[in-house]
């Protein structure tokens, strides 16, 4: 469960004002809003990359406000993927495990698992600069899932893709969410994306979340 309680965040020109919402555990939440409405700021606050002035971030019933990003157990895919330019795909997938001091054998197994899950087994030794948009997003997704987080925050993961890769990735996101049971908060300005993916829909307007609709059966 991803929960925000009256989050107020100042970020440059605008600020988020008393945001309150919740995405139930194991659901695919899509947060919609126009460009510049503060979606990215909200995601960063939930991930712990920005501190709120007021309010709490609650993940699975735990108040994590003020925790370090790495302690929150959130897989984060920022806009444009932000791959590490000098690392191979394999290194991307193993980075978080290396930080956690997993053994070589454990890492090998997990990387193989992840590569199969997000479909990057054939490009494990390539570096980001040769990858297509779709491949890059798969790597970013695999990297975010690598340490088995219970929560996934996606910032416009499909916006830079052509139609074909977008369709593939939508299917992948849906499948990954079902297989891992991860709770997702997916930010987008695209209504179609929201309608296909969302179990749970949120809308942000002028710094406030004004509407939530559940599509869950």
């Amino acid at each position, binding site marked *: 469960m991803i929960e925000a309680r009256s989050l107020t965040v100042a970020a440059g020109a605008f600020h988020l004002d008393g945001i309150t919402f919740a995405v139930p555990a194991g659901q695919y939440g899509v947060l919609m809003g126009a460009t510049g409405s503060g979606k990215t700021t909200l995601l*960063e606050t939930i*991930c*712990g*990359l920005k501190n709120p002035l007021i309010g709490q971030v609650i993940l699975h019933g735990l108040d994590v406000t003020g925790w*370090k*990003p*790495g302690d*929150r157990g*959130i*897989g*984060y895919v*920022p*806009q*444009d993927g*932000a*791959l*590490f*330019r*000098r690392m191979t795909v394999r290194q991307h997938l193993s*980075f*978080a495990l290396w*930080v*956690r001091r997993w053994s070589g054998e454990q890492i090998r197994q997990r990387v193989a698992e992840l590569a*199969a899950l*997000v*479909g990057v*087994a*054939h490009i494990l030794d390539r*570096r*980001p*600069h*040769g990858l*297509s948009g*779709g*491949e890059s997003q*798969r790597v970013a997704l695999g*990297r*975010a899932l*690598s*340490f088995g987080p219970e929560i996934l925050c996606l910032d416009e993961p499909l916006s830079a893709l052509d139609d*074909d*890769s977008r369709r*593939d990735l939508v*299917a*992948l996101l849906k*499948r990954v969410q079902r297989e891992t049971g991860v709770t997702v908060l997916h930010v987008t300005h695209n209504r179609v994306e929201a309608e296909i993916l969302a179990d749970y829909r949120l809308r942000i307007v002028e710094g406030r979340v004004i509407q939530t609709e559940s599509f869950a059966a």
Partner: protein
Amino acid sequence: MPDVSPSARPAAPASPRPAPAVSADLPLKRPFRAKADGPFYLGLSILAGFYVALIVAMLLADVYYAGLGHFGRILASPNIQFAIKLSLLSCCVTTILAVWVAVPVGYLMSRVKFRGKAFVDAVLDIPIVLPPLVIGLSLLILFRQTPLRALDNYFGIAFDKPAVILAQFAVATAFAVRTMRATFDEMSPRQEQVALTLGCSRSQAFWTIVLPESRMGLLTAATLAWARSLGEFGPILVFAGSTRQRTEVLPVSVHLHLSIGDIEGAVAVSLLMILMAVVVLVVVRVLAGGDWLDRSFRGRRRSRSPDAPGDAPLKEGEGASHD
């Protein structure tokens, strides 16, 4: 062309197909024509040509004036051999110190907001805008104050080799800091942020993500610091003096030769410095272009467009792997 000219118009009705809409309503002569680009490029190349010619002419004049005979004489002099060694050593030490300081300062200035940042920013630029002699004088005065004076008396800093390095360091670091700051400014913080969410501490993110990605900037900063140090003269003259076999770096040699009227010698030493600077620049350029140092820099430039057509087969492969 002929079908656009007015004389071709009578022929149009003869054609069985209807004439295109354009020829029916719009005037047939070209309505507007942008000015030619030639003069613009000509202007650019004249200005650039003058400057490049000036630099090349200066160097050629040096070579012509000094001649190879003086060059041999200079190289054989033990004083100059000492100056070469001291210059190389002090520049390398200074470069290491400068980069060592510039990386954290540049990172701090680029990523962290703090009170008084504008002030610190201005202070960091002082060595760049201050007259070199004033820097040397200030260093000298500083080491005459009580706490540092004791240090100076004990280690012998002023008018000795540490003073050479300190004088070079004071200026070169300012340039290295600017370069590193610009490097970090250009780098998106997103990679670091992702590393933080993956469980890195700030320092892990810095060492594993930020520093490897800033390699080109590091190289530029080091080159700049090295080149500045090689040419450093004013502060060294005031703070370290110009003692033969002690604080004589190459610019000081030029000065010493000039002061006794040995202009050919001064020019020969200058040529030596030019040669050293050129060698370092070329080596760095080659290293920077080398595959081992920066694969992605070259790769990105090369792969952007050729990769696009290659997308299709890859995508099929992807589809197969996850369906």
